[in-house]
């Protein structure tokens, strides 16, 4: 291929592309250092300051800018994400394990589960709000929103586990059976330790998806808001650079989370493959 000419051109294109992707983040990063409290969320930068970071953390002197309604909504988002993560991973692992065999209705079940990631949040949210209203069930973040969050994240966990099991060599399980170990014990002692990296991925996926989930939650969380909803409610009111400072902080938090995940992954992959922990004999 005329890669000599094409490759550099494409490389430049990709660099521009990444710039395009990161544009908003760069902008909001810059603007988070806007002067406060009079500075607005637009250019030019009147004066560089860390006022808004202090404002987020509650350390700034009182001003007419009210603090972001985080705090309790952050707690709700994290709890909800955690609940969703655990539930959808457990259901996803079970379903993927079921899919290792052949049975009638397999294709239907597959499409049913994958449907959860295809249907947009607006529709699922509308539907669950309808059901809640007509049956008189109260909407809460820990009940109705939780249900729709799992509907959304379960397909992802399921597909991740399907891919993991696809590459799984089942002869180790057969070896375990031939030694007299029951299938359920085999799953606990052989299968699960070996698929654990995949399970971690599924968990991370589910947590991230639920944490930032907005459109479904809008309809199904009732009066107590999760974090994205709290942010959305500020849309209609005046926005300030504190929202950008918040964005930077949460991105850094996500980065930290992912580093923790990467470390856990490396550790568990290492454990599953190399030197076993020395036992005292």
């Amino acid at each position, binding site marked *: 291929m005329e890669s000599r000419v094409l490759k550099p051109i494409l490389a430049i294109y990709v660099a521009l592309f990444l710039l395009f992707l990161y544009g908003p983040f760069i902008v909001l990063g810059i603007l988070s250092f806007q002067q406060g409290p009079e500075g607005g969320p637009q250019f030019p930068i009147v004066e560089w300051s860390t006022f808004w970071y202090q404002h987020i953390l509650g350390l700034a002197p009182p001003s007419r800018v009210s603090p972001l309604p985080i705090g309790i909504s952050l707690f709700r988002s994290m709890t909800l994400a955690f609940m969703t993560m655990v539930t959808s991973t457990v259901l996803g692992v079970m379903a993927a394990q079921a899919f290792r065999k052949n049975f009638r209705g397999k294709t239907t079940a597959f499409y049913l589960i994958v449907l959860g990631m295809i249907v947009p949040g607006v529709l699922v949210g509308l539907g669950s709000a309808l059901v809640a209203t007509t049956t008189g069930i109260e909407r809460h973040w820990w009940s109705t929103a939780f249900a729709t969050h799992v509907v959304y994240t379960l397909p992802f966990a399921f597909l991740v586990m399907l891919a993991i099991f696809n590459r799984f060599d089942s002869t*180790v399980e057969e*070896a375990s059976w031939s030694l*007299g170990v*029951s299938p359920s014990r085999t799953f606990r002692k052989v299968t699960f330790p070996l698929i654990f990296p995949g399970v971690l991925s599924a968990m991370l996926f589910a947590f991230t998806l639920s944490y930032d989930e907005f459109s479904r939650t809008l309809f199904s969380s009732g009066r107590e808001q999760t974090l994205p909803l709290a942010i959305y409610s500020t849309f209609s009111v005046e926005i300030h650079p504190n929202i950008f400072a918040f964005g930077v902080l949460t991105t850094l938090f996500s980065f930290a989370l992912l580093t923790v995940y990467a470390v856990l992954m490396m550790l568990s992959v290492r454990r*599953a493959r*190399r030197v076993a922990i020395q036992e005292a004999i």
Partner: protein
Amino acid sequence: MAMATSEIVTMQDGSSIVVLDEALLRLEGITKLFAGRSALSDVSFSVTGNEYISLLGPSGSGKTTLLRAIAGFETPDSGRIFFEGSDVTRKPAHRRGIGFVFQNFALFPHLSVFDNVAFGLRNRAEPFPEDVVLSRVKETIDLVGLKGLERRGVHQISGGQKQRVALARTLVTKPKLVLLDEPLGALDANLRQRMRTELRRIREALDIPFLHVTGSETEALSMGDRLIVLDAGRIGQYGKPDEVYASPATANVARFLNRYNVFAGTIENDGFTTKYGRFDYGTRTPASERAYAIRYDRLSVTPSGGAAPAKLAASYVASEYLGSAMVHFFETADGKVVEVEHHLSFGPPEAFEPGRSYDLSWNPQDGIAFG
């Protein structure tokens, strides 16, 4: 509780006696289909005493499927499997008490060598107390020659050592039957040779039957007390190696042994007619496929044009040195390869001219006619 199977034999005087069947493993009419194709068709045999049994067949003959069916990893579509007298056809693998050594070893990658071997004892339905586990594992590790490697991870040992771990892991649970699926397939030739002796030694020390699947006829012939030859999902022959070697039951069995030249043709009472001539035969074996077989080492090479009771013309291609024997390859006019084996204890090998035509002759009494 398992009860032995029994036969009710009616005597001439009308009375019946019960004869206890002593087969440890018995298969009746095992058939298994994969995607419409039959991998196993009506396979029946039994294993009685404690022997080393080789299961030989080319790839696709169904030998691994058969082994997996006995172990319980596959369920036959029809037929029954009896183990220690009871019907285990529907019994799940973990309750059969049959050991299995995998071709790819299937060691638990997240456990050490010691923990791999101890796994079965520690995790069965009624686990053994840890002190018993320790002593038995130690004993078995010594038996297979893995002493000193207990704490290693499974990726830190060689192929031959992995093989022994796989073996030890199964043997420590004291199964009544051990199935081995091409256990030496992943090892290099030198190691294979040594492991063959090892396996026989270990089996004799434990005195339990081994059923060893292999695609190598030399391995099957040298290792087995008895030999089962599997041909396209059916049993071709079941007998002692020397019997199978000297009197193959079908043309295919003769082919799998890699010791016979096999020719197609038609059989008549006074001879067998092939493309290359009509030959007398010494043994007639009834079989569905008609063929004429003559062993490699029963052929002599003589200059073209001589007279002989049975001969065919072929031109010399090349020779292969096997250490104690030479194999000469000849080709007939229509391209069929004929092999002649010359054992070097009979004298130095002759040199032949490539491309030149020779007569390959034999004593027709050595010929086997199938049909």
